[in-house]
């Protein structure tokens, strides 16, 4: 059809590559999403304490990782960290190797990038709560931490969900840039396959479909969560 040749897909080697690449992409996306959400939560909590030096530190982190291309961050971690001494001696070969593997570097950089975006999203969610709700919680005897855990986070997280969906879908797609630092994810194997077969269009079309399906599952899941957590008067609640 349309002169496309997918006969290479019957080759078990390519099937294995596609499968492994897809699994690695999912793994990298899930792991970096989880760390990013953690960074966002603790960052936003720390910001809500209003400690000047901590605010400055977090702001620096956010500006640094939000305002630089993730690809540049990955290259930085991959090439710089091992050069400036983050190396270990491999117990088997006795060779000095970088402490962080390519996968680790991609994970760290994507987590920081996503984390910086999450901090901003969660902070704005917390700040959108009416001050009066907080006053009511104080008058009922809730401590700072109690208010954060029982009232602010439950409400703010619902307000933030659409923004979080955006961040996580973007993060998922950004994992493809890890192919540049040789992380064997979907994009990396796609390159291997079309270098072998010269079927660039066919490979790209297939990879595109895989990404569309994976990210669709993610955003479908997020909207399910959004609906399940909705309460009347806010967002999707009735």
């Amino acid at each position: 059809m349309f002169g496309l040749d997918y006969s290479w897909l019957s080759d078990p080697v390519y099937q294995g590559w596609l499968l492994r690449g897809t699994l690695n992409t999912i793994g990298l996306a899930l792991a970096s999403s989880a760390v990013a959400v953690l960074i966002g939560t603790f960052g936003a909590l720390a910001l809500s304490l209003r400690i000047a030096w901590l605010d400055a530190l977090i702001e620096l982190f956010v500006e640094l990782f939000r305002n630089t291309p993730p690809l540049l961050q990955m290259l930085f971690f991959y090439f710089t960290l091992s050069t400036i001494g983050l190396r270990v001696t491999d117990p088997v070969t006795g060779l000095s190797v970088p402490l962080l593997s390519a996968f680790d570097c991609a994970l760290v950089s994507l987590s920081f990038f996503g984390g910086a975006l999450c901090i901003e999203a969660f902070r704005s969610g917390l700040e959108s709560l009416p001050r009066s709700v907080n006053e009511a919680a104080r008058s009922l005897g809730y401590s700072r931490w109690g208010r954060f855990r029982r009232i602010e986070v439950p409400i703010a997280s619902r307000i933030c969900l659409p923004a979080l969906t955006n961040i996580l879908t973007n993060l998922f797609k950004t994992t493809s840039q890890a192919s540049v630092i040789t992380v064997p994810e979907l994009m990396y194997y796609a390159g291997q396959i079309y270098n072998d077969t010269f079927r660039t269009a066919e490979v790209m079309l297939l990879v595109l479909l895989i990404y569309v399906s994976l990210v669709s599952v993610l955003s479908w899941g997020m909207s399910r969560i959004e609906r399940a957590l909705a309460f009347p008067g806010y967002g999707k609640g009735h």
Partner: protein
Amino acid sequence: MNRTNALIELDAVTKSFASFEVLKGISLSVKDGEAVCIIGPSGSGKSTILRCINGLIPIDGGRIRVGEIEVHKLRSEKEMRPLRHRVAMVFQQYNLFPHRTALQNIMMAPVQVLGHDRREVEERAHRLLAKVRLSNKADAYPGQLSGGQQQRVAIARALAMEPQVILFDEVTAALDPETVKEVLTAIRELVDEGLTCILVTHEMKFAREVAERVCFTDHGRIVESGPPAQIFDAPQDPRTREFLGQVL
């Protein structure tokens, strides 16, 4: 009045926000079981007085005592906890937690803050919902309730803390005229049962009916206080007369 047997006592309380002096020496004592209404023009410091009594706003000078608790000496939220247990507050904008149902709103603090037994608190919450005539709305979210219904849930939430005192901060100011009555009815019952209440209100008719004492505040001072008949029918201070002339 014998000051030592007052439940709440404010003595020369001052408070400024930046350069604006909101309270310029408020002295007030409230007996156990008394209902006191605070009336006065906007910005005269009425709501600030309430917020100082339950420690939401720290004061600059003077003393506040509730029972044996010296409010002006409390520094942390943890130290405030016994005070919060004793003094509850109902707000103009209801301030219910939007992510929890009416029943959960009432149960949250007694369970999570006071550590009371969940089953016992649930019974208490149902009893209180019945008291404010909202038994059929236990599972409704605040967003599904009218203003008057939300305010009655807020009253039940305050009562669930089993307080000795409830502070009402213009609780009918945001309500439709037809729902004001249902909220006032709920408050009147509490006063009749002998709960100590301090009410900031613009409902002069209600203040006259329900209060044992009315305080008129203007520019950060209590200008005049006395039984409702005296304040409303024979005000002594010209500022009281002027204010009542405008609102009555």
